[in-house]
């Protein structure tokens, strides 16, 4: 397993590298954000351990640029910033885990292993996008060809579910279960909301697969 450790304090970085190497990782170290971005974009790492307060480029910016460049390497943020907003921002920008310094090395290793178990090299964008329509779960906003679109909470939930299954057929029963959940709804609610979404986002976006369900049409 190949690991990139991004940490500007050299003694801390060296200790981390030594510990991870001993745990069986192949470790690269970057001491600033610019170098981290460059290495992470070029090399296929299995995980990145990232500090936030970095010279040249902040850790937040590194996360944002990696995800924008469709690099989906799992990122574990290790920062001395302990504010709830710091943590939420890191995760919402596309980090996968967040630990506050100081942390026990044993716990850090366990978090890293858990992150690798989830093993994700598939696209896990923080902002979903399908054929000109984008959906940002963080700001709860939807755009179509760059223009903002107002959706109700229910419409938003249904669109998000379909976007996360883009290209796959999703049955009405599955939509009812995942979008309406235990609240339940009339059986035709799915059809009604599919109609609303088509009206707001274009007829061609949601395709009906007769007898099975719905599918988001890929561009």
């Amino acid at each position, binding site marked *: 397993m190949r690991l990139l450790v991004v940490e500007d*304090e*050299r003694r801390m970085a060296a200790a*981390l590298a*030594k*510990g991870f190497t001993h745990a069986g990782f192949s470790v690269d170290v970057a001491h600033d954000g610019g170098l981290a971005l460059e290495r992470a974009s070029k090399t296929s790492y299995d995980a990145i351990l990232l500090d936030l*307060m970095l010279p040249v480029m902040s850790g937040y910016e590194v996360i944002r640029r990696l995800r924008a460049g469709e690099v989906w390497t799992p990122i574990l943020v290790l920062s001395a910033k302990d504010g709830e907003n710091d943590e939420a921002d890191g995760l919402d920008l596309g980090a996968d885990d967040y630990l*506050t310094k*100081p942390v026990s090395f044993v716990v850090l290793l366990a978090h890293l292993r858990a992150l690798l178990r989830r093993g994700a090299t598939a696209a896990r964008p923080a902002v979903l996008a399908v054929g000109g329509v984008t959906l940002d779960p963080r700001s709860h906003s939807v755009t179509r060809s760059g223009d903002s679109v107002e959706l109700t909470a229910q419409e938003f939930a249904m669109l998000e579910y379909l976007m996360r299954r883009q290209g796959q057929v999703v049955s009405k029963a599955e939509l009812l279960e995942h979008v309406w959940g235990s609240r339940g709804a009339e059986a035709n609610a799915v059809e009604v909301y599919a109609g609303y979404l088509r009206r707001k986002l274009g007829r061609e976006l949601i395709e009906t697969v007769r007898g099975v369900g719905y599918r988001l049409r890929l561009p």
Partner: protein
Amino acid sequence: MTRRVSSWWTTRSLTLRLTIIATVVLATGLASGAAALAAIFFHNRLAAVDANLRAESATLTALIRSGQLPDPLPVPAGQAVLAQVVDPEGTVRAATPAASRVLPILPPAVLRSEQSGHAFTTTASALGSAPLRVSVTSSSLHGVPVLVVTAVSFSDVRATLSALFRTLVIAVPLVLLAAGIATWLAVSSALRPVDQLREAAEEVAYTRGGTAPHLPVPRSGDELARLAHTLNLMLERLHSAMEQQRTFVADAAHELRSPIAAIRTQLDVALSTPTDADEWATVGSDVLEDIERVGQLADDMLLLARLDSNGVGCHEVIDISVLLELSTGPLWVAGDAQSLRRAFDNLVANARRHARSTVAVTAETVGSDVVVMVDDDGAGVPAADRQRVFERWIRLDSARARDEGGAGLGLAIARSVARSHGGDVTLADSPLGGARAQLRLPTVQP
């Protein structure tokens, strides 16, 4: 008892107290006014009545003395004066048209005792129990002693007085009630902004953090509006001071956490991986460096806190040229040598960090100030950042790692020290091409 009354009084609302005070003052004023009115009215009427009696007596006495006794006795037109001329025995000799010609106005006993000619009030008259103002003057007609009795009914004065009294008894409470209500309304409307201020202040007291608290300023331009304005200024100052404090503490926690995390990780890793003696020695010296960083940070924060709260302690006269080992000749300032040395050290350390090869320290007297200049030949500081670099925890050189760059308190401390000595630190361009830090201190006579 007095205490209970006073505690009752002080716990009442201001509106109630002002209303009570105003009403009591008004009631006292009205009552004494009414009493004075009645007294003046009574005395004027009495004086007028007595003057009439005296005039009539004088007229009749003059007639009798000249030997005449007309019957009926003359009376000035329009005056309700009764007069009789009687024997000492009480027989009526002559009377005014309205007076009895048979029955003397006063009983013989009174006639005998009251012959002074002075007016007096009696109810023991032949005219019934109505009060009467009378005077009796003795005279003689053809050598026979007679008495001139003049009288004016006093009951109309009494009636007027009691009518006045009845009117006042009804009117004064009504006026007081109206005045009380008016006072209550006026005071409570004048104090309404106070209540609004209180409510807003209560809200401020129970809300935490967020934006700067603000009290509504009454639209009037009166004392209350000015008070609200001043309170708002105070709240803003407090809020920004608190905000500054909070940021400082959060930054301090963050800055302390970094070296502590490094120490912990280094020890954690060394303990959980095979580490030989040489490696342990390296870990030991690395950890020591981080511990020194923590210690330095703690010292810096303590110094800043001390400078913030009460400035520098002792003020001795110091020769800056000796402190800086310069050959300029003596440059005297008053202050604390230790904290001044700290300020200079910080400026020099900062210049060293940014210099390519040269750092120069010079000092001279400019006007009434001693100016110490620390020059470097580094990249300099852009004009836009020359104030910002003095803020706490500021690091302009984002390309530098934290463990090399210092925590960003050095210049803040230098400025705090200079300001607590009545001077300041500023940044300018250096003739060497980099930045020039100027520390200015007021000079003193040794």
